[in-house]
């Protein structure tokens, strides 16, 4: 296919956490609200002149300092973020909001705080830790709202005078929904037998929506969507279509590696992916905006830490439905090395998707930066692709 016009632009944005658009937004008077987990309702960090930035650590090499503080047994994502923070890579942030979700990410942020890695001369800088729902019911919804008020909205208002009114929240949801709509519309082009966008390209675009101020990339996303409508797809060069499920994928190189191995990544159900991370938030005037946002986040949450059994079973059902909708031949359950929640979810999920739903499943752990283990992963994916092909052949013979 012909290269997307803005792909290199988006790829460049992902080369550093402190990208040029963050600097531009700050120069415009924006307040950067940094966060580290998809359980933080993103629109609430985009109220008034605040803008949300999800922390990530592109091009991570070693984790020496982070490994000293947290040992080499904590998940590589948390160590990569701490390492980058110690290096001063997140000094653009004006506050840090972290849910006490998974233990390792919580410890990562606590170390950032204790080591005074962020804030610098900004006296208004604050750290906030939220309790987030463990189940999906009205009690958890009430908790979610209270936590968002106490640990996001009120601190933003008190420190920076940011407008946290219902009207302001609705405006932020409007912007959020515009981005989500664009990303999901772009994602629709993954569905057909001849997709017009690769999984890698899609991942680059999606990741950019988390790590850049949204209003500054909207125009380029719109142009990309228009471009895709007329883009000539390749002849079918993919040997299999797979869905990737698991821990956050901050390194688009992983998706590229999978696709180089012959498997088209047709759906992304991982932390900070588009499913369900870029779901639109439906809004009505019957309820306050905060309640509606929290309900949407709680109900659509696919985080393995949600522990009621409806959610435990629901996560597998969701994967199956998405796989069906996007035409996946197989599922890759991946887990960033040492991530406990996804270690268990990967085990149970891969078993249930294989036995209860009949999908071929590849279950793997991986490093934060795939470059450090590319050969091993490539071998696993290639073998998986071949196994899917063999299954297809056998199925055809049987028929």
């Amino acid at each position, binding site marked *: 296919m012909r290269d997307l016009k803005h792909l290199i632009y988006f790829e460049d944005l992902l080369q550093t956490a402190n990208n040029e658009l963050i600097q531009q937004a700050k120069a415009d008077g924006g307040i950067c609200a940094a966060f580290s987990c998809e359980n933080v309702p993103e629109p609430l960090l985009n109220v008034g002149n605040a803008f949300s930035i999800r922390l990530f650590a592109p091009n991570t090499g070693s984790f020496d300092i982070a490994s*000293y*503080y*947290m*040992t080499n*047994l*904590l*998940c590589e994502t*948390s160590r990569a973020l701490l390492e980058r923070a110690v290096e001063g890579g997140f000094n653009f942030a004006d506050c840090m909001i972290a849910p*006490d979700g*998974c*233990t*390792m990410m*919580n*410890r*990562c942020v*606590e*170390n950032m705080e*204790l080591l005074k890695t962020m804030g610098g001369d900004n006296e208004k800088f604050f750290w906030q*830790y*939220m*309790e987030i729902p*463990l*189940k999906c019911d009205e*009690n*958890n919804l*009430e*908790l979610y709202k*209270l*936590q968002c008020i*106490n640990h996001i909205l009120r601190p933003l208002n008190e420190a920076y005078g940011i407008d946290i009114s219902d009207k302001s929240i609705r405006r932020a949801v409007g912007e959020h929904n515009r981005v989500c709509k664009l990303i999901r519309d772009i994602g629709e082009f993954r569905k057909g037998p001849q997709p017009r966008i690769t999984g890698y390209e899609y991942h680059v675009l999606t990741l950019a929506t988390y790590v850049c101020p949204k209003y500054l990339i909207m125009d380029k996303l719109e142009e990309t969507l228009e471009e895709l409508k007329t883009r000539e797809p390749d002849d079918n060069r993919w040997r299999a279509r797979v869905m990737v499920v698991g821990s956050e994928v901050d390194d688009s190189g992983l998706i590229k590696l999978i696709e180089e191995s012959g498997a088209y990544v047709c759906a992304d159900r991982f932390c900070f992916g588009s499913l369900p991370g870029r779901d639109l938030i439906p809004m009505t005037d019957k309820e306050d905006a905060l309640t509606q946002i929290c309900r949407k986040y709680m109900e659509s949450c696919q985080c*393995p*830490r949600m*522990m*009621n*059994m409806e959610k*435990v079973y629901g996560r597998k059902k969701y994967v199956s439905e998405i796989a069906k909708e996007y035409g996946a031949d197989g599922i890759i359950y991946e*887990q960033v*090395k*040492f991530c*406990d*929640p996804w*270690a*268990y*979810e*990967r*085990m*149970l999920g*891969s*078993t249930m998707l294989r036995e209860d739903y009949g999908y071929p499943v590849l*279950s793997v*752990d991986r490093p934060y930066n795939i470059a450090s283990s590319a050969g091993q992963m490539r071998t696993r994916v290639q073998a998986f692709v071949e196994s899917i092909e063999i299954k297809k052949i056998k199925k055809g013979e049987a028929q």
Partner: protein
Amino acid sequence: MKKVDKVVDPNWHRKGDQRLGVLFNDGKVRRRREWRGVKDTFYDYTRWLYIMSILARFIVKPRNIKAMFRYRWMANYLAVPHMLDKFTMGLRDESLRIVHTSLDFVVYDVAQTMEKVFRGDRKTGNDEEWSRNCVLTDENAMTAFMMGFPDVNAILREVPTMFVANLLTQNSTTHYLDVAQEFGLPGDVCPMPEAEVGISIEDDFPVLGCCAVQVNTTCDGSLMGNGVIANRLEREYGIPTFQLLAPMRHREDDVQTYAANDIKKAIAFIEEKTGKKWNWDAYFECAKRVNDATRKRQAWLDINATPYPQFVGAPFSLYNDTNYMGNCGRSALFPPVDAKLLKYAEEGYAAKRMMAPEYRHRAIIWGVQPQYCIDMLNWMVHCWGVVPLTDMLSLVNTKMIAEDDTPENREQAYYDMAWLNENMIMRNRTHGGYKVLVDELWEFCEQLHADMVIMWEHMSCKALDGMHGQFEEQGRARGIHIVWVCHDLCDPRVYTKQAIRDQLSSYMRTVLREEPLDPSIEVLPDDNAW
């Protein structure tokens, strides 16, 4: 560095065996029993007979014999007398009686749990009527939500299968860890929930009860393992499970209502499944016992803050696990044991009784213990004169809960149960932010006049590992000796017992330049021991 005055007993004379190394050879059990002088050997022998009588009464029942052949982990219980010997090594007088009083009762309590388990177990006793009256609960969960159900049995089935089994024999979990890993679970998660998942996968848990209540207990692994276990309980055995939540930021005011509301839901769930109504009289009776246990625990710790600590180490920790969490005021059998323990501790303190000729260092034990080597705390007193004043798992709730039945207290009771649930052992420190894990450690060092922290570094415990550097730097800044003792909780293949003890020994020799009090036990040939 911080220094504490060395405490020396000028009249030290240990009756009987002086060098404890003579007790060991390379076998599963000791070379011989310890000679403690006539009086203490006789006392120890009567307690041995008592333990044997518990085992005999247990094994004469046909369903328990059946269980012995059905469940692989049951064989570990042959080592019960040996476990007691590990914790009483070198002890005399009050300290010997304290260990026997506490741990003998733990043995009795576990035997009672197993009686209940096998009576209802579908694969052995299969008493269906009994089973309908049982609720399965987590091993690491406070059973506070059962305080108002006097006629319902809370069954902590993971206690005998995994937790106690690994205290008894070091290799008890290795098979189940292999099972879980063969099923696809990585080897780097905490081995305790991993082993429990392995037991579930192998179908080696007894199956009973009309329902189960699970809690997000100590860590992400524990929370996630519950999902795997519940999947089998619900889909294969038709036992509905309720997931009771305990907030992570448990010290924050803005999570308490949330937690209390879920306690109400758990109670409603149990009422629905068992058909039994919540009984406030029973609840407040239990609440009084919870408060009594809290007062006693504080009194023991007060004595441990003096130069003559009495109730210390693993027996304190294991007894507290059983009483504070597994019992949580529900049994009337515990308060007399608490009182007896306090009596012995006060007598020992009054007589300035010591376990070794000198106490060189006063240590707080922090982190999560190596389950198969927790008797190391007794060893280090005798070998190095390091006294384990208390441990992280024993520093739990200190608040009194409402114990009078009034309309206001009935509402308060939900908050109290939630508070207890949030403050179950271990998770009250592993969750709640760095203040409860790091900052409060230094406060405890002050309160208990400790100059040393034995830092269990359970290599798969992400909550503790995540603060490694902070402990290191803050301990150094305060002049407190931080002795890192790395292990893998319940997998001796990763760290043998001697490898664990060697870490303390090498610190004592190389950093503190000290020689052992009893060199005969510095290296123990117990790699093959139970």
